[in-house]
Every structure is written in structure tokens, then in C-alpha cells.
């Protein structure tokens, strides 16, 4: 395990959204959620995921190829 200080805030937000939007009992009624169409959530998630993946990418870039070549990550 690397000794590193991890800011858990983005992780917790992403987990919160996964948990509250995707899980829980469905009673029906007027359900406003269609996860694929949530612009605001997607916007916020983009920020969260960018924060996570940017750090990872920088680490990986420095580690794998000092010349600057970067492997392509999965598109979110």
C-alpha cells in the first residue's frame, strides 16, 4: 500500500450519487430519475471524475513514459 494522502471527498460524492440514485426501494409514484439524462449530475460527476483521473493520469504518465506518451483511459 502506498503511503499517500488521499482526499476522500470526491470519492464520497461519487459514492453518494451512486448509492442514492441507483439504490434504495422503488415505490413508484412520480419518479423523476433517468440517470442517463441527468445533466447536472453528469456535470458534477465530470468534475469529480476529472479530479480523480487527472491525479491518476499524472502519476501514470510520469511513471510509465517520461517522453510524454499517455495510455488512453476508458471514456467516462
Amino acid at each position: 500500500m502506498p503511503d499517500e494522502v488521499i482526499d476522500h471527498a470526491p470519492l464520497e460524492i461519487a459514492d453518494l450519487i451512486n448509492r442514492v440514485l441507483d439504490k434504495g426501494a422503488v415505490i413508484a409514484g412520480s419518479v423523476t430519475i433517468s440517470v442517463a439524462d441527468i445533466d447536472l449530475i453528469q456535470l458534477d460527476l465530470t468534475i469529480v471524475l476529472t479530479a480523480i483521473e487527472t491525479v491518476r493520469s499524472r502519476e501514470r504518465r510520469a511513471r510509465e513514459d517520461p517522453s510524454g506518451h499517455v495510455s488512453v483511459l476508458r471514456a467516462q
Partner: protein
Amino acid sequence: MATYLYCVRSDVTTVPAGLTGVDGTAVRAIDAVGMAVWVSDVSDAAIAPTVERIKQHDAVCAAALAVGDTPVPIRFGQTFGDEAAATTAIASRQATLRQRLERVSGCVELRVVVTHGHEGDGNEDSGSKEAGSSASPIVSAEGPGTAFLRRLAREGRADLAREIGCEEIRHAIRSSAEPLVVDQLRCESARGLAFFPVLVRRPNVSAFRSAVHEILLSQRIALSVLGPFAPYSFAGDA
């Protein structure tokens, strides 16, 4: 005014004074065929999801978890025309809801989130670092599976390495901490996270975290244990 739902519980517990939910609306409890449902009145039946509203919804479920027995949390965004319509809908699903309430009684949800899948330090021969540690009975840091995961990580497949690492950890936990686990679900990958939910009894939360820590001593997977939460993942589709 529309009625917005947060959670269902089997015990009659007073809603904490001043508790607010979505858009700052006051939370109250209504009775539905003997179950207590925490709701609030919202001006519009169409509650568009925002991070703030999701936090507000979760805060109500967390407050419900903090008092009395474990509630069944309801998924974000469910509103009914009025209280009577909500009560009728709850009543129509009472058998399933009671079954869910019984399932989660006395328990909380923890979520094991894998943040790195064997890619933590990028050191090719660092597997030897674990030589003196206690190896998991399920996963060896020296095994071919680990080598495969390292290769994925080197190739930039962090997502896949994370998902496979998540499943490895899940099996290791199931093996080593089984007495502490009431239930667990398979790994999922969503929105950039690989995770799996675990249902544990409230008094066992610390013991479970300790067990995970012990398992991690022999692993090269970085993860976080989040929670305790109301058991969203075990509420099922009532």
C-alpha cells in the same frame, strides 16, 4: 403539494426536531399500514436531481438510521400527488417492504470502494515487499492473478484492474470476515468507481474495518471503506 418519500421504518420513532429534506422542506412521519414513512411536502412532483438534493435526501435517511431500528431507504426522486396516494402505494407493497425491513434490521451498509487496482506504486518487483506479511488465503501477492493485474495497470487499463481487484477483495473478505458479514453483493462498476456493498450488524462495524485492514496488509489494492449508511443496496426494488 406533492409528497416526497425518504424511507420506511417499522418502529414509530419521532422525527428529530427541525429535520429538513429536499429543498429545505420539513420532514415528518406518516403512517402507512403500520409502517412509519418519512416524507416531506414539495411544491413540484418533478424533483430534478442535483448533488445538493441528493445530499439532502441522504441526510434524512442518515438521521433515520441514527434513531431507532434500521430504515429501508427509498431511492431518490419518488413523489406522489399527496399523502393519501403515497400511503396507498406503500400499502400495496407492504409485504415486500416488511420483508426488507426484517432483512436489514439492526444492520448498516458499508461500501468497499477500490481506488487502485494493483497500480499503487508501479514498482515492478515490489511484490517481494509482501513476502513477510500474512498472505490472504484467497489472493496471493505473488500469484499469476496479481501479475495479470499489474500488467493491466501498466497498460493503462486502470478501470479493468480496479474492477478485478474489487472482486478479489470481495472474495478475500468473504473468506476472512465471513462471521461479520450478514450479506454482501457482487462488485459493481459505475461512474468511475468499483465497489461492493456489505451489510453488517451495527456493533460489528469497527471489527469489519479492522478485518479489512488486516486483509489489505497482504494486498496491493488501495481501497476505502465508506459508511455506515442506511442500507440502500439491500433495500431492493420494493
